[in-house]
């Protein structure tokens, strides 16, 4: 597994060497800072009903999803596409590492950077905690949800990246797939069939995140993230192997 570790370390460093990472980090901080200040202003106003600030911060909001979908797209688009375009794939795939090791190394690097993106939000938790007691359960559940859904999105993005040597194409494919993945659950309320409603209800990521923010952890959802992530990672290894046959 030392090969996977070498890929992981290189890939994680590559994030910090590229300007893209800092653009994403800045965007992330701006969106979150703005949104957090909105929540605090909203809850401080006596005319509005009260609520839990962190529940609002993680659930019930399009901001979380914007960030998730953009991060899923931009963090993964170059992972394999760039190797294909630059031709570095040739030395990588003639080194004693398997496709699985390459895919896992890259995936965990993306996941690591993704978690790093969320790290500054712990400051908000600290700020809230300073002024008022907090319920740690829902907060832990929220981060678990962000981790699970992020892991799912990054796996989809990695697969898209393995299908094209063009980063822009990878990004567009990822963005489209993530939109479908995200919005198919929202169709729950639009279909009539009982079975369709139930199936889509299970896939409703918006509802998932909402529940995580309330502290509800449903293991079926975690299994869903894990299996679909696993599937896309497997597909990535196959796509990478298939590149050789062209």
């Amino acid at each position, binding site marked *: 597994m030392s090969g996977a570790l070498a890929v992981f370390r290189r890939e994680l460093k590559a994030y910090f060497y590229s300007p893209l990472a800092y653009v994403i980090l800045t965007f992330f901080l701006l969106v979150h800072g703005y949104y957090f200040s909105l929540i605090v202003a909203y809850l401080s106003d006596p005319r509005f009903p009260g609520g839990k600030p962190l529940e609002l911060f993680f659930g019930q909001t399009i901001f979380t999803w914007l960030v998730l979908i953009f991060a899923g797209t931009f963090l993964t688009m170059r992972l394999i596409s760039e190797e294909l375009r630059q031709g*570095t794939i*040739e030395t990588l795939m003639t080194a*004693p590492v398997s496709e699985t090791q390459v895919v896992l190394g890259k995936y965990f690097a993306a996941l690591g950077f993704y978690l790093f993106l969320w790290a500054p939000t712990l400051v908000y938790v600290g700020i809230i905690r300073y002024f008022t007691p907090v319920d740690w359960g829902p907060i832990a559940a929220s981060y678990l949800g962000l981790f699970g859904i992020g892991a799912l999105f990054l796996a989809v993005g990695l697969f898209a990246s393995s299908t094209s040597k063009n980063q822009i194409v990878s990004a567009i494919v990822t963005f489209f797939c993530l939109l479908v993945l995200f919005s198919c659950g929202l169709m729950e309320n639009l279909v009539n069939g009982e079975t369709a409603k139930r199936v889509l209800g299970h896939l409703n990521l918006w509802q998932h995140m909402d529940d995580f923010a309330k502290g509800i952890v449903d293991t079926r959802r975690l299994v869903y993230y894990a299996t679909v992530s696993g599937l896309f990672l497997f597909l990535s290894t196959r796509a990478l192997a298939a590149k050789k046959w062209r």
Partner: protein
Amino acid sequence: MIEAMNLTRRFGGFTAVADVSFAVPEGEIVGILGPNGAGKTTTIRMITGFLPPSSGRVTLGGHDLFGGDVAVRRHLGYLPENVSLYPEMRVEEYLDYRARLEGMDRGAVRRRLPEILDRCLLADVRRQIVGTLSKGYRQRVGLAAAIFHDPRVLVLDEPTVGLDPKQIIAIRELIRELGRKHTLLLSTHILPEVELLCQRVLIFDRGRIVAEGSPEALRERWRGRGSVTVELAAAAPEAAAALAGVAGVEQVAAEGDSGARFRLDCAAGADPRAEIFQLAVAKGWTLLELAAARASLEDVFVRLTTRDGEADAAEEAA
């Protein structure tokens, strides 16, 4: 050490490499020669396990390279044709990464690094960012990465492309030195390089091996088909006709634009120089130049690769 058995590679309807077999025994330096599009790089990509063959097998030290065990590739060092590196990394960082991919640990990398930087003339750029290096330096970084883990087999696809003459000499010296310890497969356009370095040569054309042997043996085989250059102070048409009549001359080709300067292709084993001299004396022509060209590897190469082309064209016309 490396054995290729009946390698064939098709891309769609196009056959890039057709039924190529060869073996490189331990410790030998073998050169691959051939014009562009002859299938050299495709063959090398199959030999290194990057491109699976449409049919045939490659073994490295007796292990099938496409058998699913990636550890076999640890015995292999590879410098691809287009050396592509990660532009954002520093030289030593990149070498460290490549060595780690090969399974070396931190301590081993640290011990090996100074020696490699020194051998590949990279010591002065060790902290430089790869993207800012010149082509020659990048080539050497690629070579350093290929030999870092001390592989038993080295495959180098055009290792001296883009280097200046001084660097070429240094890299050739390095390759020759590597050849003492490693099995080496070298692809190149540059014929003197092959003559200088390789014990055996495979000449590729149109996806097949058209000749194989040591540079000396190949020259020997084609020596008879040498040529003679003649320059006479005489009327060109008359001289050409007379020269064509000399025994052993197969073809007379005018050389240069002015005067009677010819290149005569000779029959195998024939040396018409004495007769040409007699002819000049008899006709009263002044002989300005008379020289026999020894068949170089280049001649062998040109003959082999163009003759085949002409034969194919004739076939198509028929």
